[in-house]
């Protein structure tokens, strides 16, 4: 089963995203901030998709994206930011740091699945 991770400090958001991913056959891990996400990644190096919030305690989403991308072994993980940040400059920064896609909150389930389809990680 393909593995994914949802990184968000809101449990409610994690739950919504987890359910969506599970519907598309993913086994889903959760993390409440960037540091925790890196720890989960160490344990489960076969995670291939991460949905990442921006504003979180400990390590924020942008820092997490940079940390993941700094490791060549993790170059193929698909990273999608899901965040309340809606400034174009922020999006540009996230994409430049290595995020593959960007979703603005609030989102609907279709928004998430459309983007994942665009990324080729669900059919």
């Amino acid at each position: 089963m393909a593995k994914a991770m949802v990184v968000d400090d809101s449990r409610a958001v994690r739950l919504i995203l987890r359910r969506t991913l599970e519907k598309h056959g993913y086994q889903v891990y959760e993390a409440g901030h960037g540091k925790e996400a890196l720890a989960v990644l160490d344990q489960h190096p076969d995670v291939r998709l991460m949905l990442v919030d921006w504003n979180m305690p400990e390590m924020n989403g942008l820092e997490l994206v940079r940390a993941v991308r700094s490791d060549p072994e993790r170059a193929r993980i698909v990273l999608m930011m899901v965040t309340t940040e809606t400034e174009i400059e922020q999006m540009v920064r996230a994409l430049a740091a290595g995020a593959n896609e960007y979703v603005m909150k609030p989102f609907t389930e279709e928004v998430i699945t459309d983007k994942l389809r665009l990324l080729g990680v669900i059919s």
Partner: protein
Amino acid sequence: MIGTEQGKATGGKEISAENFAFLQQQVYRESGIVLEPGKQYLVEARLAPIARQHGLASVNELCNLLRAVSNDGLRRRVVEAMTTNETQFFREPAQYEALRTTLLGELLAARRSPRPLTCWSAAASTGQEAYSLAMLAAEMGLAANDCDILGTDLAEAVLERARAGRYSQLEVNRGLPAAYLVKYFTRQGLEWILKEEIRRRVRFQRHDLRDSARHLGPFDLVFCRNVLIYFDHETKRRILQLVREAMYPGGYLLLGAVETILDLDHLFERRRVGQAIVYRAR
């Protein structure tokens, strides 16, 4: 049956069977769209605001008004309110992928003389389909005057929104790659505005798919997506024939995911490109 009796009991609020039939007939005549029985709730939801704006107490009264006076503007608004305008950027991404990897290149190479590629978004709604193609063309390095894009629709209201090129956050969130969003849009408050460099690539005008489109074409590429589903079999057939008449032989037709060319194999040849099904005009 929700007849006039119950209608009276609820202050004439619920649409009568007679008025539903009247609206079915109006919508069919004006757009070709078949309003299926059982869609009374939809009629209520979509027409109640128009009734209210005219100071009428119910959709039944709106029907009475439509019967009593000949008012083209009002009739058109009612019909437009009954059409589904849902659309999104890069809907059915596999088709855009087919255009990018294969079809646009082939079409460009097949031109007999130097002329722009001609493209038609035939049920354009609020413009996302035509603009997706425009962004794709820009990404592929096609100059604006190498790729002519026309968007048409029956409904004036959606065409006006298409021309404005302003979209809500939800609309740009759906299906539009973030890389395109940051490159081709600016933000103004809660709205996202398509940049002039993309907007000027597309023209919009009113056209009823049931009319000949010869004068608009000929086209190399036609999107006729998620609109045939609303018509009856005969109307679908006729529209597909009219579309074919407006195309270059060898041009490509793209349909919605659940739509087909029916039995018109003598007009179109089915072809698979990657994950997409496309139809080549014979």
